[in-house]
């Protein structure tokens, strides 16, 4: 049953590609083609090299980007026409090649010929836009499939004919030019439009990543691996191919989907690379069942070794660095720092914790709550009061998103500010800056600044005045503003798809920023702290100076 389904699904996909190929290649994308959608959600096979690069334009859109009705159509088409395995294979190859070419063309077209308005109805209405556009957006956008896949660089704009040419110009102004290269594709906002082959566990994970329910480098990595395990458990190798070969491509499409939800973290990328390597190493003669079991075991042990146990080891050695009477400053909410502080407290160390937090994610709030609940002395302040908070600090503990090969700490934006304030010898005492980081987060990339590599989040997140933005409801004036606690707790259910018609009157003076000339909003996610501001990196391999990151990374990846 399962197997049959899988086969059917893949046939559907192949057929779909074939169909799509035929439709798109000779002429301009036909606006009617319902088939184009799945391809649009899978722009490019996941390339490990680019997995981490921010490819999405993280502008959040309210409307479901894709209709759901198109997928079955192609499935039916496939069911009608049985194909021999050989034929299928051939077609698949041709389709793939064609798709690559098309994508390439589109990419080029997206950058050069983006001014040509495409006659589509799939206007991605931005919440605070003109009523006219809203009408199109709420009305037809729900139904009309966007015929051409979203063009790279064109964003969610400019798809409703000539009106939007002008609008597009405006939109381009909204990209902060220094960070222009980071505005990739738009970020996905719903599950709609995902290809059929995306597993439901991955769909769910995508949603959770999207709205920051699962946030933090380690958590994202673990969640991804667990979702992959689900996927592998329910996976059956289609006929005429081997597990090692097919599963990798199958995984790739899942990964592509995930990366449209939120650009993959370094840890996710590293884990995926390790997993793919393991899959490729499976002997083709291994029976599927045992191969699947060994894969699941591999994932389990990977999570255990690289994250669970690693965290314990790190927390253990980091907690030894905490002395009685210390004042520990930390920024935002790192799970490993939390673990460290709790462990030190449980070992009888008595110290104060000063949490520095910042908008828009307020990750420090749940940390503050959890630590205070456990009995620690906690002071919570926002990043504006950094000089005050750092004045009586004795140590700084930071979490990491990644450590780069030149020893840079790539972490939540604001981290560099904290580290630099600690190193500034204003008070005559240097405060050690300690980073807790698993080696899974090490990367061979080099980061000299925070501009070249970064992630841009939805600028609308910056709008709300006193409550954090609802991360699902794109409209800041959403009727139910979520409480911060709610969001931080991580148990926040994704709000129902907004039926909200955007209000023009907003509490925030910036609400109408899209239509305000000369106004740009920038919401970046990360920054780079240069190595000289970091005294020590605590990993599961021991404590290192930041300069030793590349050595350890090489060692870990070679083993």
């Amino acid at each position, binding site marked *: 049953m399962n197997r049959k389904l899988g086969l059917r699904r893949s046939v559907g996909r192949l057929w779909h590609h074939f169909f799509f190929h035929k439709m798109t290649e000779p002429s301009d994308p036909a606006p009617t083609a319902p088939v184009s959608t799945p391809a649009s959600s899978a722009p490019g096979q996941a390339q490990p090299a680019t997995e981490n690069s921010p490819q999405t334009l993280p502008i959040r859109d309210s409307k479901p980007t894709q209709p759901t009705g198109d997928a079955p159509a192609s499935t039916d088409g496939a069911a009608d026409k049985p194909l021999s395995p050989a034929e299928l294979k051939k077609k698949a190859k041709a389709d793939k090649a064609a798709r690559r070419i098309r994508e390439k063309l589109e990419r080029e077209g997206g950058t050069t010929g983006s001014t040509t308005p495409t006659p589509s109805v799939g206007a991605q209405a931005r919440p605070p836009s003109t009523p006219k556009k809203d009408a199109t957006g709420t009305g037809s956008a729900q139904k009309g499939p966007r015929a051409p896949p979203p063009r790279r660089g064109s964003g969610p704009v400019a798809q409703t004919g000539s009106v939007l040419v002008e609008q597009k110009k405006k939109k381009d102004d909204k990209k902060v030019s220094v960070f222009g290269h980071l505005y990739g594709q738009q970020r996905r906002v719903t599950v709609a439009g995902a290809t059929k082959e995306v597993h439901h566990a991955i769909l769910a994970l995508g949603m959770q990543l999207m709205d920051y329910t699962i946030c933090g480098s380690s958590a994202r990595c673990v969640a991804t691996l667990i979702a992959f395990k689900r996927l592998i458990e329910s996976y059956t190798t289609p006929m005429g191919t081997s597990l090692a070969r097919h599963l990798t491509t199958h995984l790739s499409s899942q990964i592509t989907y995930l990366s449209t939800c939120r650009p993959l973290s370094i840890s996710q990328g590293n884990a995926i690379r390790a997993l793919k390597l393991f899959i490729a190493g499976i002997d083709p003669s291994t029976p599927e069942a045992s191969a699947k079991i060994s894969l699941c075991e591999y994932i389990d042990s990977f999570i255990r070794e690289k994250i669970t146990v690693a965290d314990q080891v790190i927390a253990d050695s980091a907690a030894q660095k905490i002395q009685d009477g210390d004042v520990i400053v930390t920024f935002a909410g790192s799970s490993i720092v939390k673990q460290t502080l709790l462990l030190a407290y449980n070992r009888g160390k008595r110290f104060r914790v000063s949490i520095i937090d910042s908008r828009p994610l307020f990750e420090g709030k749940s940390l503050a709550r959890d630590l205070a609940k456990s009995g620690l002395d906690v002071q919570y302040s926002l990043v504006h009061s950094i000089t005050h908070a750092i004045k009586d600090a004795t140590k700084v503990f930071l979490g990491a998103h990644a450590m780069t090969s030149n020893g840079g700490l790539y972490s939540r934006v604001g981290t560099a500010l904290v580290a630099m304030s600690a190193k500034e010898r204003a008070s005559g005492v240097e405060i050690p800056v300690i980073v807790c980081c698993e080696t899974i987060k090490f990367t061979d990339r080099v980061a000299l600044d925070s501009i070249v590599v970064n992630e841009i989040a939805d600028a609308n997140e910056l709008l709300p005045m006193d409550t954090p933005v609802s991360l699902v409801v794109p409209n800041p004036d959403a009727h139910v503003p979520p409480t911060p606690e709610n969001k931080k707790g991580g148990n926040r259910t994704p709000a129902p798809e907004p039926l909200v018609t955007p209000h023009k009157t907003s509490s925030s003076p910036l609400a109408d920023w899209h239509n305000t000339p000369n106004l740009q909003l920038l919401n970046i996610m990360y920054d780079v702290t240069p190595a000289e501001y970091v005294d*020590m990196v605590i990993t599961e391999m021991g404590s290192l100076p930041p300069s030793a990151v590349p050595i350890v990374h090489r060692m870990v990846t070679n083993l």
Partner: protein
Amino acid sequence: MASTTSDAAVADTKPFDIVATYNELLRSDADLTMPIAAIEALVLLLTQSASSTISETLDLLEKSTAHLKRSIPNPIGLSAGTDLFQRYLITTLQRPGQLGPAGDFKAIRTHLLSNGRLFIRRAKESRDKIAAFGRGFIRDGSTILTNGGSRAVAALLQKAADEEGGSSAVRFRVIYVLSSTSQESKHPDEEPEGMETVRALRAKGVPVSTIPESAVAYSLGKADMVIVGAEGVVENGGIVSRMGTYQIGLLAKAIGKPFYVVAESHKFVRLYPLGQYDLPIEQQVVEFKSEEDLAEERKQQSSVADTNGDTPIKLPLCDSVDFTPPHLISALITDSGVLTPSAVSEELIKIWF
């Protein structure tokens, strides 16, 4: 080392006293460094013990190491040696083949012991290697400021003096910072650490000036570089060394003179101090006392003559150390080459993994 004699006396009654052996070794051979003495003591322990399994051997090693570390006031230096030896044992035992876990234990044992000796011999030779590497740093007409009683520094300077023509030609000068703390302590008549080197250098025709620690800033202007020894080189490339080295480092940085450290690579310790007060030893350096406290102390001293029990051993001031952070160090001259401070962690990782 006050308790050495009593320990040595007990050594006969006990089967094997690692602490006494260690102290004895250090005393008998002036050229021996702490890590090497520790390794040698451990090798002696293994030769005398009758362990017959791997786990028994490792267990014995661990216990004796812990005991040794507890009994020595400043175990930073020796822990480099014990850690290295333990690591070496484990890797040898894990290696496949005849000497691996499956092999004959007796063969493993003899192999270990002979290699342990080899290790000691090599370590002693390393000072010559360092001198060879470091010689290039001492140029004609340069003035070198140094401190403490480091044998590696002494070897380097003497080698340079020999190289450059001995007594006939004077090519470099030395400013030797002599510690004043030893004079304040119990033996005021004892000459300060380093006097021996000073005499040896003078005998070779090298002009040496001896200055007190308080004159370092004043004299640094006349020096071209600072060369110091180290008790231990820690993971971030900083050094643990004789009290006063840190301030010389700070002054050298402020004045812009290069600050070189001479250390054997067996002195690399798996330790990551974040600052002066993050060392795993207790030092009586900064102690606040009022008249009341002093009176109390005097009373206690008169009433209790000698309590050499199991109270935590505190380091006397003359033996105290400080930590020189890596950013003050220009380079480390070791037997595996001239390293930048950040390369130390790389070397350590190579040894440990």
